[in-house]
């Protein structure tokens, strides 16, 4: 069957079950409730003054009674510095556990160490918002017997509520914890800031282990996960490489192309009609997307505009804007550098939020619904504004859905920023290889060679044209790019579906087929 974006979606897929095709960003939400039943969180009990502390991670994992076919989850707040995920999988493999479903909120370059366990049957399925590097290559080549599932950050919370991700064990790294498992990422030698993605795991996993290199006196304050959800606590020497967990401060790119795109995007935002007192704002953490913040900061100062909140993944740049009074508050689901941690702990207007409050479509209002402006990157964008942020030019998985579709659907103004081509590869093109975010959620594309407004937003186009911004038809831009780069050959795939891209509401927006070798 075809979904609304004309992508072929099978009715059922072994390893996942029945698939529901994507029908539009708000079709399922319009009902006002989620039709799928939700699973209850587990009931647990501990006797007074019982001891949760284990000598090591292996002992704690053994106590959770791991079994074949289990689902194990992790958060990705330690980013490229994480050692806990790989260590946990090694222990499970050593215990002879097979057929594991790995459900990490994302997978980074730190997790390439699980590759042997994909090949030997230890891990047979993956749920994640992002997959990169060698792992992404292996998955696209079909290393797993069951299809992997790419979800959004908000969609992951929904998937846990419905039991699509049914977590048997979660291992949560923290930079500080007490002996009861009250834990945080906001202080300690390995501080990494918000633990926003971990909350849902602590609430729903049947067994919860907190791992920290820093056991503090009871009670650990503040706490991102609380003791009433925690089964075991482990003190380890290290949760990973501190330099990769949280570098000092995130620097704005110096790449001229990214800066140029960012400058244009800031002009678009300024003249869109959204940049006014009380506006809310989210940018990505890298490249052109973060650089937009640099120009918006200047514009806000020049026009004496005070915003309401910054949302999402937070960098020191966002913290600076809070401290300068440009925004009243920050809602932080994920922190990107060390400077953010100290703000999170010291500034009451810098608030840690769980992923459900951030982006789950099925509640009474996630914060992405309150966004005025979001700036998002793209690996590819097609002439209907559909965006690919997951597969690269060779068809391998090399990106992250993250909060892309969540924020794009919620914001009044969604700005996609990317170069029109990279090297000799066209980025703006007739068809993208994989759709993650539907074109209906993208209002405007900003590239170095042109600004294109989605035809569904004639009001926005009018505002931009009135202010002297030249707007191009996206089809003309795609043709212009093709004249420079030539037409890229389509990626050759096998028929076998190795992964699916789940939209935030649980429907399937696209599938990923095995790359022909």
């Amino acid at each position, binding site marked *: 069957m075809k979904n609304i974006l004309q992508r072929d979606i099978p009715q059922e897929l072994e390893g996942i079950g029945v698939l529901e095709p994507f029908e539009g960003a708000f079709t399922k939400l319009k009902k006002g409730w989620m039709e799928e039943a939700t699973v209850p969180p587990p009931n647990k009990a501990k006797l007074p003054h019982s001891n949760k502390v284990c000598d090591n991670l292996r002992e704690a994992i053994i106590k959770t009674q791991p079994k074949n076919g289990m689902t194990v989850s992790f958060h990705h707040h330690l980013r490229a510095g994480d050692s806990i995920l790989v260590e946990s999988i090694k222990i499970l493999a050593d215990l002879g556990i097979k057929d594991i479903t790995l459900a990490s909120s994302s997978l980074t370059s730190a997790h390439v160490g699980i590759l042997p366990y994909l090949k030997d049957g230890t891990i047979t399925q993956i749920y994640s918002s992002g997959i990169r590097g060698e792992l992404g290559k292996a998955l696209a080549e079909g290393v797993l017997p069951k299809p992997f599932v790419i979800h959004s950050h908000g969609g992951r919370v929904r998937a846990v509520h419905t039991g699509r991700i049914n977590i048997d064990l979660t291992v949560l790294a923290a930079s500080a914890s007490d002996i009861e498992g009250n834990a945080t990422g906001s202080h300690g030698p390995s501080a990494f800031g918000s633990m926003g993605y971990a909350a849902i795991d602590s609430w729903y996993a049947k067994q919860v282990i907190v791992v920290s290199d820093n056991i503090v006196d009871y009670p650990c304050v503040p706490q991102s996960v609380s003791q009433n959800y925690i089964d075991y606590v482990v003190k380890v020497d290290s949760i990973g490489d501190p330099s990769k967990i949280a570098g000092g401060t995130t620097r704005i790119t110096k790449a001229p192309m990214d800066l140029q795109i960012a*400058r244009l995007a800031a002009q678009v935002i300024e003249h869109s009609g959204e940049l006014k007192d009380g506006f809310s704002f989210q940018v990505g953490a890298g490249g052109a997307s973060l650089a937009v913040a640099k120009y918006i900061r200047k514009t806000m100062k020049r026009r004496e505009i005070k915003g309401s909140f910054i949302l999402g993944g937070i960098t020191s740049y966002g913290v600076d804007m809070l401290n300068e009074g440009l925004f009243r508050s920050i809602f932080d689901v994920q922190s990107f550098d060390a400077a953010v941690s100290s703000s999170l702990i010291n500034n009451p207007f810098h608030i840690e939020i769980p992923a459900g409050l951030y982006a789950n479509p099925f509640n009474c209002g996630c914060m992405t619904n309150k966004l005025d402006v979001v700036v998002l990157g793209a690996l590819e964008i097609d002439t209907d504004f559909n965006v690919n942020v997951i597969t690269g030019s060779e068809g391998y998985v090399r990106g992250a859905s993250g909060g892309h579709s969540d924020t794009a659907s919620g914001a009044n103004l969604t700005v996609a920023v990317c170069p029109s081509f990279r090297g000799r590869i066209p980025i703006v093109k007739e068809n993208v290889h994989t759709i993650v975010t539907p074109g209906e959620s993208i209002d405007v594309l900003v590239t170095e060679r042109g600004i294109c407004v989605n035809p569904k937003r004639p009001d926005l186009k009018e505002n931009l044209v009135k202010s002297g911004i030249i707007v191009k038809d996206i089809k003309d831009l795609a043709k212009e790019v093709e004249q420079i780069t030539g037409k890229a050959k389509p990626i050759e795939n096998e028929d076998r579906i190795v992964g699916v891209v789940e939209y935030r509401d649980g429907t399937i927006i696209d599938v990923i087929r095995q790359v022909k070798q």
Partner: protein
Amino acid sequence: MESKKNTFKRRTMLYIPGNNPAMLQQGSVYGADGVLLDLEDAVALNQKDSARILVSHMLKYISYEACEVTVRVNHIDTPFGLDDLKQIVPLQPDAIRLPKVETLDEISRIIKLVEEIEDEHNLPHDKMNIHVMIETALGVQNVYDIAKYSPRIDAISIGGQDLAADMQLVKANDGVGIDYARKQIVMAAKACKIDVFDTVYVDVENEEGLREEAEYIKKLGFTGKAIINPRQIEIVNEVFTPTEQEIRKAVKIVKAFERNKKEGIGVFAVDGKMVDAPVVQRALRVLEMADIELADL
């Protein structure tokens, strides 16, 4: 023969090494008013021919949109200068830039060569402009004679690095040593009613230093500045673009001038300050820089 009227803004001219395909391809997207495709100092000796071939192809196939395209050739007395002219002149970029021009004899010799090549290809002599670079003490002394030699010369630029070397300056970064030359070159350009570009600012990490220098050379009368990194463009464009306040003031002056002109009044006051013809002329220049047409006022 009259040179064509320059229709380009000339706040910023971005240097692009002629042997770098990626940069040549993307040159027009950074917001510079002009690009300078360089066959001279930015290209190593063993890359000269490949740069010449690459730039020739780029001129044929790449659109530089609204940017003015200038090619800097090697000096005619180097082994590469004549080949550069033979290859580039037939392609007629908006302008050709001649480095290290020192004497009247030299400029007359080069322009003769350029026009011979144009004749060979049945090309007019009034399409491609010529920019001269003054980069030596002798060139500074002769700049007015050089600049007025031909109406095809519609811009002069100062090459600060080479000039500092020629003057045997040890410390050149503060611009003190080339200050006289800057002023002399500006005066020659103004006397010939042509544009004048300032030299590059080499410390690309020092944004404040660049802004200070741009503000200084704007006061001296330069039209714009050569740029060596796309990150410098925004700052220099900002300095050379009138502020909202400047534009409002200019509009007020021009409107008052038009009103008074009808009544035959030549000197009048705006906000308590005397306005006469030179003040109006400066206000018109501000509006021109801000792309505001008189008819729109």
